[in-house]
């Protein structure tokens, strides 16, 4: 009787040790070393790019800071992860809703959520990574880290390899000399996403060029019509946040007609939400498909 109890206890201890050994992972996040000794089941993410990374390995978060608008999450991601609870805006997520979801992992953005990092840690272990203002390669690195921490390192590496293949394949069908400029148009301002931005990185990853300019390069830049003419890209891709946007208003201006993209009818509009707010493996593939459609138009 006693021996069998000991045996059971020993077995239990062994399995517990084994389990922790299997899942104990340590990664480097933006605040240093982060370890987790279990596979998280209830994950809350505070940026779309993190939801994208989770969806890439088939993990569904329980909460997303989706600005209370489920349509802002990439459709491909939505198809995989099913439903979730909104935890408010990405800029000021509701900490009480996050706490009420009882997460066992929170993934936060160093750019937006550093100020509440200590509070988040009181709710659950918090992995903090770059998201806003990250580049294309930063994003893939963050995805690899997320894959490792949710115990799907193998699956994530495979997905990343598949992603590189897909992008390389699509790159072959796209013209490598073309310079492509993406920008988002609001009612009163156009913001160009330059070579250093995420969209710029995707365009480069597809083997195309992003225009260089002589001004110091911030990733997102407000641009006037004159400045746009100075850049004069072959292809101009616009995401209209509102309609009519400033780009629509510019169409009646004489300068607009001088743009080579206008003369060659190479102005295209895309979904600004996907191109500007969503970043990630699937978002990049979505953007690449948009570009394929644009370039293979008869």
């Amino acid at each position: 009787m006693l021996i069998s109890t000991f045996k059971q206890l020993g077995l239990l201890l062994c399995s517990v040790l084994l389990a922790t050994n299997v899942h104990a992972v340590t990664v480097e996040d933006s605040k240093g070393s982060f370890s987790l000794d279990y596979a998280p089941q209830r994950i809350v993410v505070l940026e779309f790019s993190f939801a994208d990374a989770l969806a890439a390995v088939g993990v569904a978060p329980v909460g997303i800071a989706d600005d209370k608008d489920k349509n802002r999450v990439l459709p491909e991601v939505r198809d995989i992860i099913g439903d979730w609870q909104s935890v408010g805006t990405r800029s000021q997520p509701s900490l009480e809703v996050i706490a009420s979801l009882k997460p066992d992992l929170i993934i936060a953005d160093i750019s937006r959520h550093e100020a509440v990092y200590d509070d988040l840690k009181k709710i659950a272990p918090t992995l903090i990574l770059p998201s806003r203002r990250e580049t294309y390669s930063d994003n893939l690195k963050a995805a690899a880290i997320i894959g490792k921490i949710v115990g799907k390192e193998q699956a994530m590496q495979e997905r990343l390899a598949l992603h590189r293949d897909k992008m390389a394949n699509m790159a072959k069908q796209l013209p490598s000399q073309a310079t492509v400029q993406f920008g988002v148009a609001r009612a009163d301002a156009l913001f160009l996403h330059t070579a250093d931005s995420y969209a710029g990185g995707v365009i480069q990853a597809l083997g195309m060029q992003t225009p260089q300019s002589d001004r110091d390069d911030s990733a997102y830049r407000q641009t006037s019509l004159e400045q746009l003419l100075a850049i004069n890209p072959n292809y101009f891709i616009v995401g209209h946040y509102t309609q009519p946007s400033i780009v629509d208003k510019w169409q009646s201006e004489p300068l607009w007609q001088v743009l080579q993209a206008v003369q060659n009818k190479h102005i295209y509009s895309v979904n600004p939400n996907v191109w500007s707010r969503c970043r990630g493996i699937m978002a990049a593939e979505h953007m690449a498909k948009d570009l394929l459609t644009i370039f293979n138009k008869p």
Partner: protein
Amino acid sequence: MTAQRFFPIAVITLLLLALANLMFGAVSLSVEEVWKGLYASSENHFTIYEYRLPRIFLAILVGAGLALSGALVQGVIRNPLASPDVLGVGHGAGLAAVCYMTFFSEASTRWLPEVALAGGILAALVLWYLCGARSSAIKLAITGVALAALWASCIDFLMLTKPLEINNALLWLTGSLWGRGWAQLQALLPWFVLIPLALGLSKYLNLLDLGDDSAISLGARPQHLRLLALAIAVALTAACVSICGPIGFLGLVAPHLTRKLVGGRHQPLLPATMLTGACLLLAADLAARTLDPPIELPAGILTAIIGAPYFLWLLLRMK
């Protein structure tokens, strides 16, 4: 309403608002759950103890601090439409914060309150240097407004040239209690030793209302008094703004409203205005958290929504 009736009503309102702040939010809790939430064993411990409770204390302190400095400035400038904003403290703090976030974008937000505090006090020192100790209240107010406009235009310039780097700054500039907790409360609390000092000035501020000549003949020293009262107002405003960002209109509306209710004598006015300010900010933060959960609006927007029409109504009435 007399002061005797104002104080009990205001205190009860404050307590009710505090209770409402504990109970309501993106997740609504019963009184019993709130009580249990104070203990570490409760599942609502984080929501109540780590999140809502410090936020309530902060709202009370910041509301009271901004309102009190508003009342002091109005007393000194002798204009009921004055507010700490005319000293340029809020905008100075804002400019320092925006500069910090723009030029040291890698820097930790941890130091933001200290930088903002320094900016606010520096702005007040610039004003003092330009006006000198012996200047009239009008000169002080006009120079202050001009300086505030200068700081504001510098902020606008930075926002236009570095648009998206400034997103965080924009959030801070609207004034919000989001994400503030015990640590911020601890940083703010020492500044409130100034409150007894301010209340001690009540009698002399009454004399100042009679005009400098009368005040001197009654034994007050207007220059010293003005300097001391303004220094307290600047320190309180800068401390509050450094934690929560500039919460608009509170320093204008709260003292003004209170003056209508309890009259212009500073002995009841100063403590009463602190209560009004605390109630207003508690109400604004409650609304900010419950209007459209889980979205949290910045409390500064709410106070501006209440404050701006009130201000307009005042202007129309004064005609």
